[in-house]
């Protein structure tokens, strides 16, 4: 039986070392090609005319003038007259022409008449008198819940309690399965009671049922300390530097070649097949590099389908249509806002006993996200209710660690406020409550000890409100987070050629996380050869399929499939080589570029000569994850991390500066320490950015985004980040868990830690991110009364 388990530390020439990313040279030299760079001969430019209104009905479309313009190759009407449009920026007409200037001229020549309808874009606190949504779930309600990642048990409870007003058939169930709806949810739908839809006026507010655990009223009444506060995070945007989009061409009538900026190379063809009327097998999806996704690039978008339609109407010539920055802000995804009024209480010994939250937020027309409140802490007595607000703006998409950063800001803010009320150091307060911090409690304990040391927390922490004279106030804050990160389904073919070269084919992608590097490391480590000897072919849906890169699932998936393939290939090679070394196959090892006898390394063959024993036909094996026939499980789920922030606040200007951030992170077995640490640095920096600067601002009058650009939607720059310290948990208790994904967790805590540090510095809570000067000054003026929302 082959040994698939990850090797012992003593026999890991590469695993866990600091190794340069393999695609580094191509990226730093500008040679790396992205979808945006696809530039074949005869390329046509595609662009889309978008609706300027947040809510409207199309009355008429006249494309005649555009169609007559020289250089215009094709025009497609995407949404016909009579269609109701629910957000600004939605697609109306697509045009392809010889160059971008001509396309823009053509778009200006198209006349669209709209009936402008009233819009609603506010995610302010809902009025108090909204009734709980109790009618049957419509198909839209159900889709919204799924898109907003409402926990399965809540969805099932709603289906059982409220019934459904739609009748899904077998085809619908199949498509749900394809979309990743859990079998238990589908089973609940099958058993659901059909209830005819109620005729009721449409409200933008959807209130969930009140969820109660234990006896919160009693717990609050007998608690030693109670605080109330309001906390929240506005909608923010992914801001992928490479905007969404694709280049499409039709080399033959039923054949499509797709260059697309995606996190999901293997999943695109199946999504395009139906709208294009082409078998998925005839759709070739290609992508070498992607300029950022962060959760917003899993699906085929309507603009992609229409780029393909434009190409088809232009005699199959390649058409490239990348979104412009405004469209990217309006239609290509955002993180839902989340706000909450929270009441939290502790007993005299500092144990948190009760939680009450009324949360709300928006994720576009479909409502809002559902932050898991309270975050991490299993508080014994709870009452909570969430209201999703439907607004006329482009829909939310998964944004790196969906719902967790919002939940952390709300929960960790309330906990810090409670600790302050009890005059307790929050580090001490949290350590008294780690027994209700779930399965990763011990991890947090170990991590806080390290973070304390790296930050000098115990030495530098002071009671709330820096008493130093002068306008600059300094403070410390902390937060903690968790994430799943189990490896996804992944397949690969690994070939050892008789000349000793090794090649892996996998239909995956590298978002810049280092996927290419870790696949190469695992293969080279297992085969005992240098990384340069491994040629990885990826970014093509004709290779064995591998999952989309989301939810930090790639690292665990691709390394597990690669490990199994490499072990099988190595063991088959051993069988061919054993006679020449006068040994049994299981007495051999592959190390230092040789195949040799473990007990007598002098009996060895150089790798190339060993591979010559394969014979004329290369040796190809398939590797998969999961694969129960080839244990053990090489990946796992559930990580813990803690972060601390040290900030300075100028109470005269309201400007917040980061002095230092510390991140201590667990992610199981680390494959490449260098790219793993880069993920955590990146998470800290992205977190600093949303904590201090980022907000998608909607104009209540026009319903449009007011800052759809990089001047007024601020990102953190190099000068904004302060000193950063990253520590990765490794060794006993961590490595043996297997490979667990890392991209999401590191971005969860910065907002909460920074918000808490600001409160510690200035003595009052700034309720909402981003912590802009106006918000800081307002909070100082109100003395933390949180009156306005």
């Amino acid at each position: 039986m082959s040994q698939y388990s990850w090797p012992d530390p003593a026999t890991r020439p590469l695993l866990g070392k600091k190794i340069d990313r393999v695609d580094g040279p191509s990226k730093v030299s500008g040679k790396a090609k992205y979808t945006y760079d696809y530039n074949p001969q005869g390329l046509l430019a595609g662009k889309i005319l978008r609706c300027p209104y947040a809510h409207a009905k199309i009355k008429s479309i006249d494309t005649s003038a555009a169609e007559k313009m020289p250089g215009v190759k094709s025009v497609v009407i995407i949404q016909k007259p009579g269609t109701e449009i629910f957000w600004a920026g939605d697609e109306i007409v697509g045009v392809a022409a010889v160059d971008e200037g001509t396309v823009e001229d053509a778009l200006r020549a198209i006349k669209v008449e709209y009936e402008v309808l009233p819009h609603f874009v506010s995610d302010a606190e809902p009025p108090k008198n909204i009734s709980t949504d109790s009618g049957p779930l419509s198909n839209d309600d159900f889709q919204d819940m799924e898109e907003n990642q409402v926990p399965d048990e809540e969805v099932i409870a709603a289906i059982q309690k409220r019934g459904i007003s739609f009748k899904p058939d077998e085809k619908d169930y199949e498509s749900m399965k394809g979309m990743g709806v859990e079998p238990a949810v589908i089973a609940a739908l099958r058993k659901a009671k059909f209830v005819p839809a109620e005729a009721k006026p449409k409200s933008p507010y959807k209130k969930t049922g009140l969820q109660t655990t234990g006896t919160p009223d009693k717990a609050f009444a007998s608690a030693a300390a109670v605080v109330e506060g309001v906390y929240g995070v506005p909608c923010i945007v992914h801001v992928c530097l490479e905007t969404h989009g694709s280049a499409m061409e039709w080399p033959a009538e039923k054949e499509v070649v797709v260059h697309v900026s995606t996190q999901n190379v293997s999943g695109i063809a199946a999504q395009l097949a139906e709208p294009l009327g082409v078998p998925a097998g005839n759709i070739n999806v290609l992508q070498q590099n992607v300029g950022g996704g962060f959760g917003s690039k899993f699906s085929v978008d309507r603009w992609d389908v229409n780029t393909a339609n434009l190409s088809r109407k232009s005699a199959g010539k390649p058409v490239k249509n990348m979104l412009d920055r405004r469209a990217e802000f309006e239609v290509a995804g955002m993180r839902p806002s989340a706000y909450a009024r929270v009441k939290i209480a502790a007993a005299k010994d500092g144990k948190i006993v009760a939680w009450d939250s009324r949360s709300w937020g928006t994720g576009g027309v479909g409502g809002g996200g559902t932050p898991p409140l309270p975050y991490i802490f299993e508080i014994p007595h709870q009452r909570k209710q969430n209201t999703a607000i439907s607004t006329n703006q482009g829909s939310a998409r998964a944004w790196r660690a969906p719902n967790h950063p919002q939940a952390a800001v709300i929960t960790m803010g309330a906990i810090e406020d409670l600790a302050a009320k009890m005059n307790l150091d929050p580090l001490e307060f949290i350590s008294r409550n780690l027994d209700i911090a779930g399965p990763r409690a011990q991890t947090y304990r170990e991590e806080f000890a390290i973070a304390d040391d790296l930050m000098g927390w115990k030495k530098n922490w002071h009671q709330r409100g820096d008493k130093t004279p002068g306008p600059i106030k300094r403070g410390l804050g902390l937060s903690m987070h968790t994430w799943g990160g189990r490896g996804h389904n992944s397949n690969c073919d690994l070939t050892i050629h008789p000349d000793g070269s090794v090649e892996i084919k996998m239909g995956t992608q590298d978002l810049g996380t280092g996927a290419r590097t870790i696949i190469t490391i695992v293969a080279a480590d297992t085969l005992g050869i240098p990384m340069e000897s491994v040629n990885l072919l990826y970014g093509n849906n004709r290779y064995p399929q591998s999952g989309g890169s989301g939810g930090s699932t790639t690292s665990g998936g691709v390394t597990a499939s690669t490990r199994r393939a490499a072990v099988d290939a190595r063991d088959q090679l051993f069988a061919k080589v054993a006679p020449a070394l006068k040994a049994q196959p299981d007495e051999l090892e592959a190390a230092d570029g040789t195949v040799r006898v473990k007990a007598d390394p002098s009996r060895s063959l150089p790798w190339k000569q060993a591979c010559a024993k394969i014979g004329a036909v290369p040796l190809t094996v398939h590797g998969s994850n999961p694969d129960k026939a080839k244990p053990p499980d090489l990946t796992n789920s559930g990580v813990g991390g803690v972060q601390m922030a040290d900030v300075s606040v100028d109470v005269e200007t309201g400007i917040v500066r980061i002095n230092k951030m510390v991140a201590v992170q667990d992610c199981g077995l680390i494959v490449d320490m260098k790219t793993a640490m880069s993920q955590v640095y990146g998470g800290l920096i992205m977190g600093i950015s949303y904590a201090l600067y980022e907000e998608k601002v909607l104009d209540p009058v026009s319903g449009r985004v007011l800052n759809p650009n990089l001047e007024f939607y601020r990102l953190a720059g190099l000068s904004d980040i302060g000193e950063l310290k990253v520590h990765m948990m490794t060794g006993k208790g961590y490595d043996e868990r297997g490979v667990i994904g890392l991209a999401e967790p590191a971005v969860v805590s910065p907002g909460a830690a920074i918000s808490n540090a600001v409160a510690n510095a200035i003595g009052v809570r700034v309720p909402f991110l981003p912590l802009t000067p106006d918000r800081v000054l307002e909070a100082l003026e109100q003395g933390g009364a949180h009156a306005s929302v």
Partner: protein
Amino acid sequence: MKDDDARQPDSTSGVSRRDFMKISAVTAAVPLVLGPKVVEAAGEDVTVHGPGKVLVALNVNGKKLTADLEPRVTLLDALREQFDLTGAKRVCDRGACGACTVLLDGKPVYACSVLAIDAQGTKITTIESMAEGDALSPVMQAFVAHDAQQCGFCTPGFVVATTHFLQQNPKPSAEDIRHGLSGNYCRCGTYDGIRAVALAHAGGKQS
């Protein structure tokens, strides 16, 4: 490269301004390329190009490249679409993010905010000429060593900006680095590595 002759890099014929006017005048092929008009505006003669295509000659990475371009075409789009020099990226397209940074007569500029016709007569240097074949420049090597990149979309712009910055400031202080490298945005969060590149160059340690 394109099959269109006008798009081929032409390293032998330096097109002088006078030649350029002549070429403009005699080129009658489709698309129609017209020479500049002179119109009077505010009492002065002003040269107006376009709105049709004009022949634009650029000195890019030491080579003369020509293309028929509408005057509204930016240097960035000319580099990317006409000459397939795609290292400079189009990200914000309005001079905020630095992903399209190139050197114009040795100075960093945002190529999205310069018109191609206005870049004539300058020496344009792009990321593509900063590595010698497969040999990375020292700054590029440092970007790899410090993992100052993730998705890589901002990286070429950052490499150009950092290379120029370190030429001007061979021993930068932490404050110099904060000031000198704040003209580019990264979304993945690679600033710590980029800062380390500059500090290592200064002989200092990552603080």
